[in-house]
C-alpha cells in the first residue's frame, strides 16, 4: 500500500482557491509548511515501529483465531448435516429393498396367473383351504336370492308324496 493519495495531489484549482478564500475569511495565515513535511523525532519513529509490529502481530493472531472460530462454528452444522445424510441414506436403502420385494411378488403373481391361463381347468390345483371353506351343496339349495339373507341357514324339508300324512289334521274335520 502506498501513501500516495490521488485525491490530494490531483486537487482541482478551484478547490485550492476556495480553501485560500476561506482561510482569508477566517483570518488564518497561509500554512508555512507542506502537509506531509514534518520532522520524525526518535520517539515518533519508535512509536511508528511499535505500531507496525503490533499490526503484524494482530494480523497473525487474528487470522488464526478467525479460522478456528469459523471451524468451531461450522462443526455443529457439519455434524447435523452428516447425521441427516446418514439417516436419509438408511431410509433410501430400506425403501429400495421394499420396492424390490414388491416387484418380486408382483412378478411371481403374474407368472402364476400366466401359468393358470395356459393350463387346462381340471388340472388347476385347487387349494385345500378353499374347498374347505365352501358350504355344503345341500345347504345352499334353499338359499334365497336376497343378498341380506345370503348367510341364513336353510334346512331342506322332504315333502311327502302322501296327500294325507299321519301327523296332519284337516281344519274342516275339526
Amino acid at each position: 500500500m502506498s501513501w500516495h493519495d490521488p485525491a490530494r495531489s490531483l486537487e482541482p484549482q478551484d478547490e485550492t482557491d476556495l480553501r485560500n478564500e476561506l482561510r482569508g475569511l477566517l483570518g488564518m495565515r497561509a500554512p508555512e509548511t507542506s502537509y506531509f513535511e514534518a520532522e520524525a523525532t526518535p520517539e515518533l519513529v519508535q512509536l511508528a515501529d511499535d505500531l507496525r509490529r503490533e499490526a503484524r502481530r494482530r494480523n497473525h493472531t487474528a487470522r488464526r483465531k478467525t479460522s478456528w472460530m469459523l471451524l468451531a462454528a461450522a462443526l455443529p452444522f457439519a455434524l447435523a448435516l452428516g447425521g441427516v445424510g446418514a439417516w436419509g441414506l438408511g431410509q433410501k436403502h430400506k425403501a429400495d429393498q421394499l420396492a424390490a420385494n414388491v416387484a418380486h411378488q408382483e412378478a411371481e403373481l403374474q407368472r402364476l396367473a400366466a401359468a393358470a391361463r395356459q393350463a387346462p381347468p381340471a388340472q388347476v390345483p385347487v387349494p385345500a383351504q378353499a374347498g374347505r371353506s365352501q358350504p355344503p351343496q345341500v345347504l345352499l339349495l334353499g338359499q334365497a336370492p336376497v343378498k341380506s339373507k345370503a348367510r341364513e341357514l336353510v334346512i331342506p324339508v322332504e315333502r311327502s308324496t302322501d296327500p294325507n300324512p299321519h301327523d296332519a289334521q284337516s281344519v274342516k274335520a275339526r
Partner: protein
Amino acid sequence: MEQLNTQTVPFGDSHEFHDIFASLYPRLVSYARRYGATYPEDIAQEAFVILMQRDAPVEHPTAYLYGTVRTLSLTERRPLKNQSISLEAVVEPGKGPDADEDLLSQEVRDRMKALSPTFRETLWLFVVEDLSIRQIAEILDIPEATVKTRIHRAKAHLRNQLNSSGGLHVLA
C-alpha cells in the same frame, strides 16, 4: 530492538512511513481530542494499527485514518450516555476542550464557533487539516456534493458574520 524487514512490512519503505507517521500522528491526536476523546493518543495509534492490519489496499490512507479516528472517538463517547456524569464534562463533537488553542488564534476560533457543528467539522477538515473534498466525503461518509454544499454554506455564514461586524470591508 527487533529490526523490521522493509520488504514485508506494510507501507513499504520505513523511512517514508516514519515521515508520514510523524506528520499525521499529531494531527490525528488533535482530531480525536476535538471529538472529546478521553485518550486521543490511543485512538490515533489504534487507527494506524487498524490501517496496517488491512489486507486490501486503501485508496485514500489519510482519509481512512481520519475516518477511523472519528469513528473510534464517537464510539468512545457513546458509553457515557449510560453513566451518571456531569453534562459539563461531555463536550460537543468538534468542540474538544482546548483542542484548537495551539493551532488557531482566538479570532479564528471565535469565527469557527459561530458555525453549526456540522459546518464547523467540514470546514475544519477542509481548511485546517488541508484535506480535499474527496477525502472529506470519505471521512464523513457523505457524498462529495454534500461536502461542497456544507463548505459553501459555511463560507456564506462567514461572509455574513464579517458583513455584520464590518470585517469584510477591512479585508477588502
